[in-house]
């Protein structure tokens, strides 16, 4: 059996591992930490702003077809994006997560700042038109959500008077994880449902994203049945429960399929077999060892997760020292933090061919190394709002190619 090694346990790494496994390979996923799902809203953005100054696009797939050739979407093609989306939606359903969206429309999701954001695929718990929302309810003692701020922003956007409510699940200090666990207790969910029945019967109520890590949709339905209305989750500050919910589901899908996941292990170098990788050198604390494989998928992310590291005046890919794309004559960062044009450093990444193999001087560095997700160059996930979609679709292609099957 072909042995595939995936480096990185984020959305891209987990997806590549599952794809390679489903394509018949023996798969090991190595991760240094546990991914940054706790920083992830849970929405899969496909593409919203392809041009720095242009308007938002309402049909992501149509816009994907018009991207410049160095964009990762352009390298794999629109069909691959559709297949990846459908595969993702099918899989996460196994673990009780419904993701809505077909790539031809944008969803508008309310944020904890009281603004709207565009996204391509949205969890069922957030998939409600913000114009329908009547009430914003805080869940105490959660500090990272102000019902007033959200209601105020929403009132301005929808020109209707949005009310606020406050519900307390616990006393003292608990973070999002603790609160979500508490609210997931059947008695607490019931108490919350009864509270809403008194205060907001039949209305559409927005709450911070604190439904449980598991069975969130079931919990949503059971609360809704008590007050006869609709509950909407609003994604907010880390740790993000919807992001972690998705990670848990993908991990369990990978483990159920027989992927071995090794954590606490950092890839540090190539086992070079002369144009072919024999595997990678890895490190746990300060002990080094080797992991061998027939193909390797690099899904280590970008600056936030160490897939790309910054040194004085330069950016570097630390595992294989792969060449990175970088527009000549530009500085890494613009002077304004929230510059509409984005920061050049964020679109700097690994240069790949149409099979997602990293290139040096236009030829593959290793014929059995594939890269996917944020580490790819040629796009800015933050500015474009395309990180989730690029991760899913390039990982789907990389996982299949690493397993030795057609994309």
């Amino acid at each position, binding site marked *: 059996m072909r042995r595939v090694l995936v480096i990185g346990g984020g959305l891209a790494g987990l997806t590549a591992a599952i794809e390679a496994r489903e394509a018949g390979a023996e798969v090991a996923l190595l991760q240094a930490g546990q991914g940054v799902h706790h920083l992830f809203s849970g929405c899969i953005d496909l593409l919203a702003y392809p041009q720095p100054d242009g308007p938002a696009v309402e049909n992501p797939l149509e816009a994907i077809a018009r991207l410049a050739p160095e964009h990762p979407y352009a390298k794999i093609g629109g069909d691959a994006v559709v297949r990846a989306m459908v595969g993702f939606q099918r899989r996460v359903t196994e673990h009780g997560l419904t993701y809505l969206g077909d790539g031809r429309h944008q969803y508008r999701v309310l944020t904890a700042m009281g603004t709207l954001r565009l996204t391509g695929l949205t969890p069922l718990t957030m998939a409600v038109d913000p114009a329908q929302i009547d009430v914003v309810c805080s869940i105490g003692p959660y500090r990272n959500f102000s019902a007033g701020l959200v209601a105020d922003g929403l009132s301005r956007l929808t020109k209707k008077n949005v009310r606020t409510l406050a519900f307390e699940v616990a006393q003292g200090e608990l973070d999002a994880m603790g609160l979500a666990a508490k609210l997931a207790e059947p008695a607490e969910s019931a108490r919350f449902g009864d509270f809403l029945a008194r205060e907001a019967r039949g209305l559409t109520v927005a709450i911070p994203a604190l439904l449980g890590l598991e069975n969130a949709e079931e919990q949503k339905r059971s609360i809704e049945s008590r007050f006869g209305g609709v509950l909407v989750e609003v994604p907010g500050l880390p740790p993000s429960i919807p992001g972690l919910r998705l990670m848990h589901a993908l991990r369990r899908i990978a483990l159920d399929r027989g992927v*071995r996941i090794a954590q606490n292990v*950092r890839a540090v170098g190539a086992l070079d077999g002369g144009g072919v990788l024999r595997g990678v050198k890895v490190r746990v604390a300060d002990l080094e060892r080797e992991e061998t494989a027939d193909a390797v998928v690099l899904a280590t992310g970008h600056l936030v997760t160490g897939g790309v590291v910054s040194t004085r005046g330069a950016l570097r890919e630390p595992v294989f020292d792969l060449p990175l794309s970088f527009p000549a004559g530009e500085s890494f960062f613009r002077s304004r933090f929230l510059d509409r044009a984005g920061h050049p450093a964020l679109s700097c990444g690994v240069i790949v061919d149409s099979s997602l193999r990293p290139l040096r001087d236009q030829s593959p560095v290793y014929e059995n190394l594939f890269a996917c997700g944020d580490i790819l160059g040629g796009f800015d996930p933050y500015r474009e709002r395309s990180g989730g979609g690029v991760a899913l679709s390039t990982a789907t292609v990389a996982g299949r190619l690493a397993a030795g099957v057609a994309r």
Partner: protein
Amino acid sequence: MKRFIPEPRRPETLFDPCIKCTICVSACPVAQTTATFPGPKQAGPDAQRFRGRGEPVEGPWINLCSGCYRCQVACPADVPIAEINLFAKQRYAAEKGRDVATELLTHAHWFNPWGQRFHWFATPLLRMKWARWLAEKLFGVDRRAPLPTFARESFRTFARRHESPRAKHKVAYFYGCFTDSNAPEVGRAVVKVLEAAGVEVIFPVQQCCGAALIGAGNFDRARRQDAANLAAFEQALDQGAEAIVVGSPSCALALSHETGEVLGLGHSAVYSRVVDLFTYLHRLDEAGELNLKWKETPLHAAYHEACHLTALGFGAHAPALLRRIPGVQVRVLDAGCCGLAGTYGLKHKTADLARQIGAGVARRVAEWRPDVVLSECEGCRMQIEHLTGVPAKHPAEVLADALVE
């Protein structure tokens, strides 16, 4: 010629790379269960800046860290958070002392051989309600917490008379205290599987790995034990052993990482040769040398990956091997920490918290209703049996039973 081996890193100095991302807090089973623990970020790298400069020592909350290592595993900046907490516990204990329960339970390796020798008395005693009530009042050992039974024959006695046949491969087996006094059947299964795989097993003289002592910040005592272990293992490597195979993840973590980094016992060739049983078998398999024959074994098993196995960085190799046995169905629980964490779940002060932490594991086991829960860690096995009533075994026991002889 001896290869150059660098000095182990010093965890207590490595708090600076913390970027305050709080991913460790979202990974901490204790912080998610109680608000009385400030969480790994504050207890670890944040507080470490203030320690050791004559600042007053922290509160007893430092002992609420269960030592599961999940924070350290999650950290994207490689801050050894769990190990920083071990140093903080040492410092706290040096000033404020340790409670009776901690002293008693971290020295179980002193009492266990006696319990085993008088197993006909000790095992029933530990099942008597009044004795457990008394132990809780006098020693602080929770009266509901799971305690092991003592074996009729220790593994040590078995090992003394056991001759492992000469073979192509040779390993030193570190069985650990629990296998020795409480579960020798696990040790016998490990030996049976290794020998069937064409591996000669030797049993170097060994002492307790000190995992429990290290967990309580009692480094001096653990240092003496592990210095002796290192000497014995270095000798075993000189005698041609390829690896020190360990059945229990916590022992492996103590012997490969904590001995060098936490106890400061300097560099040793042993650390990188310590390997858990299933990783060793996987390596044989990758070399095309694992030719085991299985008989049909109908079994619906749930596999629980111990936190310390995760910390070792090999991942769990057991499920893939178990799935080769015809009839065996294995599903990985992936439901978090079981809560026992060595002595944490046994002490009256923290036993309730440990049970709450383990609720996620218990819920999933109850949902799946497997015939057996498999885990390499004896603490996890005791806790899961305690919380669910489903029997728990070491995966090597399933392999040994399924071998065609």
